[in-house]
């Protein structure tokens, strides 16, 4: 399988340095959580891996080789935050998923095998295969995120990046999506980069966690270690800010 490596990644927009020599490793078959607040650069880091953000320095490597950013084979796929804009409103969900299909061999797939594969993927995410003819507007937010996950899996990726995939969902639905992610990851042995601002969710889903502040990683390690014995003051600040933890809240301005 595959290890995703961010090696000294730097991203600049105009004069503003969004990512400053960030290095992070997502080992094969593991879930790495990436936490940070707005402006920390966590989403930008994810986008460099899929070619949506331009690199000003460093490299993103998959098993030591730079990630292919052109062509039909894309081993890294992404699931986005907003369930309402992640699916083309004018395409059926079957078509949306099928667009991302990559044939196991170089040949094209027949219509029947396409439909079968789409059905299989939908059932993998606990949706009935018959829903393939529905439009996104007929699905709920949680169901749409599951379709987005199916679409990401259609490309037979080696790494999946989940960018705040539950932040826009109702809490009662979050559970279903998170359970599904855990199940998928275990069954398929995927490497997952899980981005979230919510430490409790990251704790539930990830094996390792990296904490970002202002474009840099300030702390990283196994989840239990970082969250129970934080070493960096920013990590401590994040932890104490979680409602209900009853730590004295420090004032910063």
């Amino acid at each position, binding site marked *: 399988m595959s290890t995703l490596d961010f090696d000294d990644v730097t991203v600049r927009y105009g004069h503003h340095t969004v990512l400053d020599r960030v290095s992070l490793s997502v080992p094969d078959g593991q879930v790495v959580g990436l936490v940070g607040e707005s402006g920390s650069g966590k989403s930008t880091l994810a986008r460099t891996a899929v070619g949506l953000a331009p690199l000003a320095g460093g490299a993103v490597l998959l098993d030591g080789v730079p990630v292919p950013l052109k062509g039909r084979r894309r081993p890294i796929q*992404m699931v*986005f935050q907003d369930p309402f804009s992640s*699916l083309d409103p004018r395409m059926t969900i079957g078509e949306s998923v099928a667009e991302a299909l990559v044939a196991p061999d170089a040949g094209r797939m027949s219509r029947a095998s396409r439909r079968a594969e789409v059905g299989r993927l939908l059932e993998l995410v606990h949706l009935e295969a018959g829903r393939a003819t529905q439009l996104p507007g007929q699905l709920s937010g949680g169901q749409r995120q599951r379709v987005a996950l199916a679409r990401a899996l259609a490309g037979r990726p080696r790494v999946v990046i989940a960018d705040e995939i539950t932040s826009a969902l*109702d*809490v*009662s639905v979050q559970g279903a999506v*998170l*359970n599904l992610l855990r199940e998928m990851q275990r069954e398929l042995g995927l490497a997952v980069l899980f981005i979230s601002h919510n430490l*409790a969710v990251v704790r539930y889903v990830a094996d390792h966690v990296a904490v970002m502040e202002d474009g840099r990683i300030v702390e990283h390690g196994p989840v239990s270690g970082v969250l129970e014995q934080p070493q960096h003051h920013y990590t401590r600040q994040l932890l104490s800010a979680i409602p*209900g933890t009853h730590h004295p809240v420090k004032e910063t301005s």
Partner: protein
Amino acid sequence: MSRWLRALRTPVGMTGSGLLVLVLVLAVVAPILWGDQADAVDTDNLLAGPSSDHWLGTDSLGRDIFYRVLVATRLSLTLALLATVLGVVVGVVLGAAPLLLGRRSGRMVTATVNVMVAFPGLLLVLFLAVVFGVGATGAVLAVGLAGAPSFARLCQTLIAGVAELDYVSAARIAGVGRLRILTRHVLPNVAEPLIVNITIGAGGVLLSFAGLSFLGLGVQQPAYDWGRLMQEGLAGIYIHPLAALAPGIAVIIAALAFNLTGEAIAGAVGVSAATGFADPVPHVEQSAAPTPSRPHDAAGDPGLVLDVRGLTVGFPGPRGTVRPVRGVSFGIRAGEALGVVGESGSGKSLTALAIARLIEEPGQVDADRLVFCGTDLLGDPAAPASPGGEHDKLLGTSMSVVFQDPMTSFNPTMRIGNQLAEVARYHQGLDRKGAIARAVDRLDAVRVRDPERRARQYPFEFSGGMRQRAMIGMGLMGTPRLIIADEPTTALDVTVQAQVLALLKQVQREQDAALLFISHDVSVVREVCDRVVVMYAGRIVEELPVADLVDPERTDAGGAQHPYTRALLAAVPDMTTDLAEPLATIPGQPVDPAARPAGCAYAARCPLASARCRTEEPQLVADERGRSVACWHPGAPLGLLATGEVVATS
């Protein structure tokens, strides 16, 4: 497709498309049927007025004007459509260029289009008319190319709006090629405003052509279009007006045909025909006849700052009144903080807005009792949500509201200090200087550093957290007895959230005010509030002290009783969640307020639902400890399967 057909059946649509069909048919058949009569010269009747032989009279060569106008339809329409097509094609190509060419070249194209778009069409037309020469071909090229820049700009804006969306990014990540992204994802999603603009644009092109020919720069003799006919008739306009008016009316009719059809389509697809983009105005159902206000209590419990009984909010819907809030009751004392927990569709935000008297028509608020600081808020006979009511001063100074999104809750064109000062100027009688001074003082109270300088700044110079603090400060301009906070920290980072929540608590304590705190986040509510009500489908399903907001399985005493509350608690991970257990999932979806089934609204999703639950709606019943639950099986044991499904275990 069906939306468009519906559009054409509206009065506007029928008129427009009817005229369009008429004009198109004329364009095709008129020269065939009447071509000879249009050319026939009647030397006995030069410049004659209307007669039985010549309905609209004749021109200077004795030709029948009526038939000439009809026959001219073909040329006028052909030229206009050709020019439109040319402009659209060039415009779409230029507009799609940034998407297809990539960043650098795309930006050059955008910059060029921006320079060209500054020049009005007619100037470009004249310029190009010089280059291409006068005549029909030149005119088509001139008018077509002149229209291209503004069309390109429109396309660019529409395409840019779609190209940034996640589904386009997902297609790029999946390796889909740029051209296919354009044709498969982008164009279909901008087709609707594009079609509206093309249709209305065709009308504009028709008018431009008329103008050009009128100036003598368009169609040349012996060919004639409406513009040319108008120019020929202009010489004798005051003696024989029909020669110029008749073709003019034909132009108006054709332009109307395009414009009305465009308007009808725009109305159907939600585009504004005037701006060319998506219609920002919300569609509102016809106001229902105001229901006569039923008798309500004018006085409440004097110990309560806010006393609410049977609050209902209704909106007219396509199939009758929809009530997203029904029968909500609670009370808050001074210094007490009440949390309202619920998800989307629970009605919690509408409850807050109803209490703050911010629900506008056609929404209607009704209650058995809505008393604030001893004043009956429902007693105002004038439309309660419009300003000028008798409660303005009370509400403006004693009730403060903190809204959810700090980025949009301040007027972007007004300095922060002035926005705070308004409260003092209009409700506390302070003059400008005094009001600003008080505003600065309040900004300092909410710990905004350097408050004098900050007060002179605009909202966009404040960060999100600072804006929420300024919002709290705005509520402190008066003496708030009640603070209503509607998801005040949902849009903030967690560290900023902690600061704002701490500030809110401090302010509440200092003012001894009541706090109504709305949130979907149970852990935040636990941190801030004393008591909690849980809302589902517009009603309160449980009310309990915050300490009891735990799963009964995990505690020895108390705990939540309603299955929805318990499922909520089990669905959200916190820092102590057992990693080996799945998270609870609630199957199904929230109830649509327009189509609520009989019985308990939660029954369809509840593992404890029985026949009684599906037919009889449970009422809120208080127990001896002051907690209430609306359920036929409160506290029945539940278990969690490995799939996350919640099941009854007895």
